[in-house]
């Protein structure tokens, strides 16, 4: 069928089953937006900033398990997408970004809003295409979706010059394409899987160390079956939070920098670690040479380059996790050996009781942890809640206190740690799962990076609830300056009352709630959750609170710093020092 390139792009998206895209128009992408106006089944959500559009596409992808689509114009529109692309790269989120480019004959002339976006993004995409011939468009888009979602997931970019969007082609969507250089593994090596099974059967203190790859691989059922049948404890990284039901007796928490002591002990004192779609990130391992010193490593991953990148894998298995986990369970079943893990499971439970998460619930001020605890209580047992977060202390408290039992119910920026991720990711998650109640746990700093997307949430009728854990500070930075820079506080004060977040919410047509004490908390949160509207809860919390436990950067995971009570070292939440050296935010 004859049509122009812009229409062809939409027909490709439709053929790929895309139901929503997120974007913002501009000169070089006008033909595509004109084609949208002519008609398409793909809903377009108009963001207020292309970074928002990109994070929305990420939130959509993470909530749905499908490819997210973001659209932007050339130059500044495209560069605004760079942060979400980098974020998706680090967290292996499947994303197709479509950018307009100046007309082909202007490329290389520094034309208005020209920018070499394929060049800029080379280090942070799986692949990218600058489409130079309109006839290539259907193949390129087919390849783009294929590459984004196969092998290890990640972002791709398709840059389309304006004249290519306007040129005519005889459109047909290809059934198959040839990508001779893209050969993701299709199955794991049978002998390696058998070796892994033997190691698991022989281990006394085995543990499953589960990463985000498990969610990308849609392998959460297989993970649960394996863990249950072999009675293996499971730690889930921040990226894998919700990949394994957290109320399950075999869930052993979250390892890493702010993971509970018992979780880090379980991982670091294991004699066998089965890494499942995880990459031994420094936030998890702490000092690598001291990480899990006694453990044999079985590493299951679709990406061969992750094997032995950080920690030597004794038994690597490269392949898609779904069949690999199924096969591993089958091998174990066939061995018919009694699981020997009961004493180990009891040991982990003892640690769990011995080292619970703690904070000092004293003083007048609302504790940030209390906000998360209350959110958890109010949503306990609900199967429709999806959480997103910003980056900072509030994010780590969200990881610690929220209990996620359903896959894809916790969406957070892990690898890049992008402040401002939470609100747009929530909007994207809501677009993917309109039936869900999407709650963004945000910091006051993060909120101010992408708050403009509240307009998108309200006008596009994608209601989200934003709970600001408002400490008036760039809290995580404050914590580091306090602990590692001799309490020299530098450029971290935001001020709790500015802006007036509840009033700002109302200005956006959302509900706004101000919570200044513990008494007001539950009621405000309950109202926001029940409202069915976009709502912002400004919870003013104790700014001095630190997030514990903590593995100081570069320290061994077993040397984590714990919260100390009144009798211990007074460093955490050291009131008099904090009050002396800088004024607290006006309440």
């Amino acid at each position, binding site marked *: 069928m004859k049509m122009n390139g812009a229409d062809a792009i939409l027909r490709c998206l439709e053929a790929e089953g895309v139901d929503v895209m997120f974007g913002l128009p501009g000169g070089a992408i006008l033909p595509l937006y004109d084609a949208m106006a002519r008609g398409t089944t793909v809903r377009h959500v108009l963001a207020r900033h292309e970074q928002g559009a990109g994070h929305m596409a990420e939130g959509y992808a993470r909530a749905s398990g499908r490819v997210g689509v973001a659209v932007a114009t050339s130059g500044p529109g495209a560069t605004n997408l760079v942060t979400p692309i980098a974020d998706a790269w680090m967290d292996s989120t499947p994303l197709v970004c479509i950018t307009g480019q100046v007309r082909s004959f202007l490329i290389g002339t520094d034309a208005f809003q020209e920018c070499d976006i*394929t*060049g800029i993004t*080379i*280090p942070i995409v*799986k*692949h*990218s295409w*600058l489409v130079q011939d309109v006839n290539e468009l259907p193949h390129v888009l087919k390849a783009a979706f*294929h*590459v984004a979602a196969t*092998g*290890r997931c990640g972002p791709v970019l398709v840059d389309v010059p304006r004249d290519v969007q306007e040129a005519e082609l005889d459109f047909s969507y290809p*059934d*198959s*394409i*040839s*990508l*001779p*250089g*893209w*050969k993701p593994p299709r199955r794991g090596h049978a002998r390696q899987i058998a070796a892994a099974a033997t190691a698991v059967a022989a281990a006394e203190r085995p543990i499953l160390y589960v990463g985000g790859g498990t969610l990308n691989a849609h392998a959460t059922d297989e993970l649960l079956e394996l863990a249950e049948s072999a009675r293996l404890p499971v730690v889930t990284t921040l990226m894998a939070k919700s990949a394994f039901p957290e109320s399950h007796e075999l869930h052993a928490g979250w390892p890493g920098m702010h993971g509970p002591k018992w979780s880090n002990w379980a991982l670091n004192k294991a004699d066998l670690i089965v890494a499942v779609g995880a990459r031994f990130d420094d936030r998890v391992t702490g000092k690598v040479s001291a990480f899990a010193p006694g453990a044999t490593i079985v590493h299951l991953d679709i*990406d*061969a*380059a992750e*094997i*032995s*990148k950080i920690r030597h894998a004794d038994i690597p298995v490269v392949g898609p996790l779904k069949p690999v986990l199924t096969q591993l369970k089958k091998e174990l079943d066939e061995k018919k050996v009694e699981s020997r893990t009961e004493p180990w499971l009891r040991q982990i439970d003892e640690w769990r009781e011995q080292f619970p998460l703690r904070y000092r619930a004293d003083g007048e001020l609302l504790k940030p942890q209390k906000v998360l605890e209350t959110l958890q209580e109010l949503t306990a047992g609900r199967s429709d809640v999806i959480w997103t977060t910003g980056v900072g202390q509030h994010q780590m408290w969200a990881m610690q206190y929220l209990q996620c039992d359903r896959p894809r119910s916790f969406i957070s920026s892990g690898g890049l740690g992008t402040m401002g991720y939470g609100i747009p990711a929530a909007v994207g998650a809501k677009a993917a799962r309109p039936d869900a109640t999407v709650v963004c746990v945000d910091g006051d700093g993060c909120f101010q990076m992408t708050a403009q997307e509240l307009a998108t949430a309200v006008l596009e009728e994608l209601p989200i609830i934003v709970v600001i854990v408002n400490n008036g500070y760039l809290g995580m930075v404050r914590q580091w300056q306090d602990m590692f820079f001799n309490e020299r506080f530098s450029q971290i004060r935001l001020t709790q009352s500015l802006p007036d977040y509840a009033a700002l919410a109302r200005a956006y047509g959302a509900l706004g709630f101000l919570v200044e004490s513990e008494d007001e908390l539950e009621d405000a949160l309950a109202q926001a959750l029940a409202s069915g509207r976009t709502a912002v809860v400004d919870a003013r919390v104790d700014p001095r609170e630190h997030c514990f436990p903590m593995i100081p950067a570069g320290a061994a995971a077993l040397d984590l710093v714990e919260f100390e009570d009144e009798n211990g070292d007074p460093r955490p939440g050291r009131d008099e020092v904090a009050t002396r050296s800088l004024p607290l935010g006006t309440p």
Partner: protein
Amino acid sequence: MKHTLSVLVENKPGALTRITSMFARRGFNIESLAVGPTERHDVSRITLRVDCETMPLEQIEKQMHKLVNVLRVAELTPGESIERELALMKVSAPPGKRAELMALGEVFNARVADLGPDAIVFELCCAPEDVDSFEELVRSHGLQELVRTGRIGLGRANKPKPNRPRQHVLA
């Protein structure tokens, strides 16, 4: 440890940039790099000399494999491959020194590519190690300018050609 890698890539715009950018980003050291056409018009070959002091060769190969334009990565192992390099060297050669230099050149099969009143341009095409040796020898005579192409290589004649890159066709 230094290794020579022979990489087949799709002949597409940006393919080389993707590889070199990945090397830079991951902190891999490239000592030399040569790109050129192959027996197939749609495929180019990149011969890379890499220094794997900090990063194991395996990691470099695996990261390269992930690039969509990369068709095959193989190591050219010494003994099982032929490696060559082309070099041009402009050496000071006042009339009194000319004969001596030309005799040196003959030992290395270096051709005189150009001759001026007080300089000779030598052309060498040989094993990269021999280029090194000749370079060292003429240095004391006054090496004015030097250019090397970087090594290229192939498996030996008695080694079968590796299979054509497998086509990955999706349904």
